[in-house]
């Protein structure tokens, strides 16, 4: 059948390219493998050339696949499920990119293109390591290509194809209107596409500019961890354990910078676009990407130890290996749907858990097989691996599957221990390497602790338990990590002042006393005048925070000072110190901004004080603002001024005006919200914040009136009363105090002879506030015109229906309606010193990149000699 209006060509090209990239990466793997095994001569050159050609074909394919996907999204070709599911006609062009990586398929492609770019750099620069390193890269590319191939093998789904057509995806199967004769058993109608007018759109929470750049940088970080891993495998494979680490170091540094910046861009997105009130919620997804970063930090430090002292070669291998393994593990966690209960923003399950598990399996057992030295060992490794895999597949017991991965890791670690030479001599206790190693160990263990806690859903599955997160989940992490921060801050400050191998204590103290005194003074000033009084968890924890702040300041000051005291101000050499300064600032920013975070919207006064059953409840963190009525919020008077709608979406912008009562500070924030957006119910809010150098004021909408429920159905109730009588309404009572007749009014059309009656009504609310209301009744030559008056905060509308002839009483109409009120409920925070955090990240990344450049130069010099 020919369907009307479909564009099938892009999909066909795309599908072809998917297969081409799969085949090309397999060819590249094989060719580079042969080149590694052959080692030299004409054959090696031939295989290498073939490998390069295949890899370049693979690069072109992946890039074209992404381009086609963009084309499909940009042209709203909703015959493709991907475009229909992730984009819409109203989506701004910049978010069309984000809609590519909203789906799992697109994010796999993003990861893959990261490897492509890095692989091209490797082909140009890696010289004698090209063959083994590119074998690993190409093989990984092959595995990633299977993730988007979308075929079935023996009934098991292999990958998910981004070019699948909407009508073939099963989405339309339950829509009779799209089938011939409205019968689900009949095929889909030829003109079905005419009925599909718009796509499902990008999730509103992802419609933020950070979502355009955060995923590419993060996935470049993910991709870059492969390179140190590949060098490490090359070292194990060729048995040149130490040599291989020299070119690996700049790559590891690049990876650290890219991954770190990628993670923190995610934090910036969370801060600017999400409403959990901060840059981190210790969500499993965030933890899972932080853990490899922490291990990589450990790995880079042990690598430096090895370069300068020959110690810690094994630990370096272990850390670089585990960095990549934990990247894969975090991929499994976030994409398998196992975090479903525990995480707010994991990917949805694509039914590829088996394949994701297999990825982890292959990268633990294949290295184990590769590094085995004798054929006997190789047989044992292969047999164990295959038997365990078969057991976990056929028995379907999660514990065995888990054990299989652990066993694979065990095999690799065992081989590393056995083969990699160690140094028998002990490090001296006053050497730099000793304390650097302790620091690396602390980083590594804190990573293991974090990932163990994050893996609770996995542990439940493996052991058949039903454990849930503790009551204060953030605290469960923080109470440990605060001590990690103290130790790391201290070590970062002091260790640079120690020399490799041995340091005389005289030389050490001579230099370090200045930064020590300076930091002690600074920290005292901050703690005395900074009012860091975070007492939610008792004085012990507050003490720990103070200590951590002291250590963070020490790290910043000592490392900044070291640039002059130790390195004579040479920027070229001080990459390490600069990144340590940045890291110290990150610690400081995190500590101060989270312990001094203030909720401005505490519900303490105004219209929202309740009475009745819930009167003894604690004050809440949300405040309702009635349009035009200023409310006290911290030092501000805050007014909801009005709202405006997005021209093409169900998205509203609310103008919230802040005016300080103390000084003349004044500004308007415009948080926005998607209301009942595309099948969602309720509002999805995007915050807005006002930035100052030392703090941010941050607000978002947390509730809106429901227009359906608030239709003005109420009517005026008639109350004939005399002056002095009272009328009751649901939230209080009112007294008619006076009735005055006037002959002139500043009212258009009021003519001599007309009469106006003003009623003075005092309204007493149960919440002990009172209001005066003055409704009017105008008598224009016998025509009665009532001008009602509203008491906004009480949702009251009052009017005079009729005035008694003798002027001693009147019929007062009372209407209670919530429809007259326009209001928003919002939550507002003050974040102090959040900029220290962002600044720290930038400085850290700059420092790391300076080191990277320096290491590349050193390697080049060495190669020339």
């Amino acid at each position, binding site marked *: 059948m020919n369907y009307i209006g479909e564009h099938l060509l892009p999909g066909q090209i795309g599908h072809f390219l998917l297969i081409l990239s799969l085949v090309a990466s397999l060819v590249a793997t094989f060719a580079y493998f042969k080149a590694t095994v052959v080692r030299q001569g004409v054959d090696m050159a031939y295989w290498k050339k073939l490998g390069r050609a295949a890899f370049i074909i693979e690069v072109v394919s992946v890039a074209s696949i992404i381009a086609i996907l963009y084309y499909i999204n940009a042209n709203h070709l909703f015959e493709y499920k991907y475009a229909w599911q992730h984009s819409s006609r109203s989506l701004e062009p910049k978010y069309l990119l984000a809609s590519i990586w909203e789906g799992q398929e697109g994010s796999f492609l993003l990861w893959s293109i990261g490897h492509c770019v890095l692989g091209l750099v490797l082909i140009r620069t890696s010289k004698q390591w090209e063959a083994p390193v590119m074998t690993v890269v190409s093989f990984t590319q092959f595995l990633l290509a299977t993730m988007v191939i979308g075929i079935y093998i023996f009934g098991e789904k292999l990958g998910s194809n981004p070019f699948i057509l909407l009508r073939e995806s099963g989405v339309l199967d339950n829509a009779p209107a799209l089938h011939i004769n409205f019968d689900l058993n009949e095929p889909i109608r030829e003109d079905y596409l005419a009925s599909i007018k718009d796509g499902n759109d990008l999730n509103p929470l992802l419609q933020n500019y950070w979502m355009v750049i955060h995923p590419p940088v993060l996935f470049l970080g993910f991709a870059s961890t492969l390179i140190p891993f590949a060098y490490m495998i090359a070292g194990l494979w060729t048995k040149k354990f130490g040599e291989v680490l020299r070119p690996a170091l700049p790559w590891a540094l690049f990876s650290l910078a890219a991954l770190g910046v990628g993670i923190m861009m995610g934090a910036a997105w969370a801060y600017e676009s999400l409403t959990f009130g901060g840059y981190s919620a210790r969500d499993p997804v965030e933890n899972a990407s932080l853990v490899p970063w922490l291990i990589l930090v450990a790995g880079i430090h042990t690598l430096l130890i090895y370069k300068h002292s020959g110690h810690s070669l094994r630990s370096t291998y272990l850390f670089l290996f585990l960095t990549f393994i934990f990247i894969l593990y975090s991929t499994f966690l976030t994409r398998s749907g196992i975090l479903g209960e525990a995480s707010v923003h994991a990917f949805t399950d694509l039914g590829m858990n088996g394949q994701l598990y297999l990825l982890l399996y292959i990268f633990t057992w294949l290295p184990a097989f590769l590094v085995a030295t004798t054929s006997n060992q190789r047989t044992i490794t292969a047999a164990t691996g295959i038997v365990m895999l078969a057991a976990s597949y056929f028995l379907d017991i999660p514990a065995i599957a888990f054990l299989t991965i652990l066993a694979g890791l065990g095999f690799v670690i065992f081989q590393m221990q056995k083969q990699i030479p160690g140094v028998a001599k002990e490090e001296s206790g006053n050497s730099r390497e000793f304390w650097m190693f302790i620091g690396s160990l602390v980083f590594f263990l804190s990573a293991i602790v974090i990932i163990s806690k994050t893996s609770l859903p996995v542990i439940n599955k493996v052991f058949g338990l039903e454990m849930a997160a503790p*009551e204060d989940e953030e605290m469960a992490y923080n109470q440990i990590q605060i001590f990690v921060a103290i130790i790391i801050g201290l070590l970062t400050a002091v260790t640079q002042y120690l020399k490799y191998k041995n340091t005389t204590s005289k030389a050490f103290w001579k230099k370090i006393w200045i930064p020590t005194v300076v930091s002690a003074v600074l920290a005292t000033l901050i703690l005395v005048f900074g009012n860091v009084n975070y007492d939610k968890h008792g004085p012990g924890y507050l003490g720990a925070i103070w200590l951590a702040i002291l250590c963070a300041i020490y790290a910043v000051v000592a490392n900044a000072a070291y640039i002059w005291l130790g390195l004579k101000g040479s920027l070229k050499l001080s990459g390490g110190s600069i990144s340590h300064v940045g890291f110290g600032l990150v610690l400081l920013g995190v500590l101060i901004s989270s312990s001094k975070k203030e909720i401005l919207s505490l519900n303490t006064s105004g219209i929202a004080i309740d009475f009745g059953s819930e009167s003894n409840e604690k004050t809440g963190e949300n405040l309702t603002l009635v349009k035009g009525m200023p409310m006290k919020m911290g030092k501000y008077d805050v007014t909801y001024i009005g709202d405006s709608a997005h021209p093409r979406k169900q998205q509203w912008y609310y103008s919230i005006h802040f005016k300080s009562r103390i000084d003349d500070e004044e500004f308007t924030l415009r948080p926005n919200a998607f209301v009942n957006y595309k099948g969602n119910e309720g509002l999805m809010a995007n915050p807005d914040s006002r930035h100052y150098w030392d703090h941010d004021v941050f607000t978002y909408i947390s509730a809106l009136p429901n227009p359906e429920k608030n239709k003005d159905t109420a009517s005026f109730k008639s109350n004939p009363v005399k002056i002095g009588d009272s009328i009751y309404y649901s939230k209080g009572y009112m007294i008619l105090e006076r009735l005055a007749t006037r002959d002139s009014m500043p009212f258009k059309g009021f003519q001599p002879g007309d009469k106006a009656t003003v009623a003075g009504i005092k309204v007493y609310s149960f919440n002990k506030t009172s209001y005066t209301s003055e409704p009017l009744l105008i008598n224009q030559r016998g025509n009665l015109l009532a001008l009602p008056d509203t008491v906004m905060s009480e949702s009251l509308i009052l009017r005079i229906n009729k005035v008694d002839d003798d002027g001693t009483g009147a019929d007062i109409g009372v209407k209670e309606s919530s429809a007259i009120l326009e209001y928003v409920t919002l939550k507002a925070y003050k974040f102090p010193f959040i900029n220290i955090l962002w600044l720290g990240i930038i400085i850290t990344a700059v420092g790391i990149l300076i080191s990277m450049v320096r290491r590349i130069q050193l390697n080049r010099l060495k190669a020339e000699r």
Partner: protein
Amino acid sequence: MKKIHIILLVLVAGAIAVLISFLQTATTYDTVDTAISKPGKYVHLMARLDKSQPVEYDALKNPNYLEFTAVDTLGKSVRVIYHNPKPENFEISERLVLKGKYMGDHFDCQSIQTKCPSKYKDDMSAAGKNIQAASEQY
């Protein structure tokens, strides 16, 4: 034994101690009955919104007071009080993870996680219905 080994042992022991203490603070997933059976204890109550009962929320009266009835898979229901506005997709969610404590006469909820039918597969059928609804208008 080298110094480094002693430190290694101490740190690893510390890490293990931390993890064990973490497991002890871990809480449980509960039904209404089991949550009621341990009043004052923090639990994860798995339930869904009982739509036949009123949902009380009036931002003008108190923006920090939401009261509704939750019913679990066994059909038991409990009154829930939550001191925040309605979370998004509250009324269309098919499952709620309510974190809090049972307090005498109601479940005092500290946080609500809504599980929407928009998680992929169901999303597809829901979206399919949308298409159907849209196309039936012709």
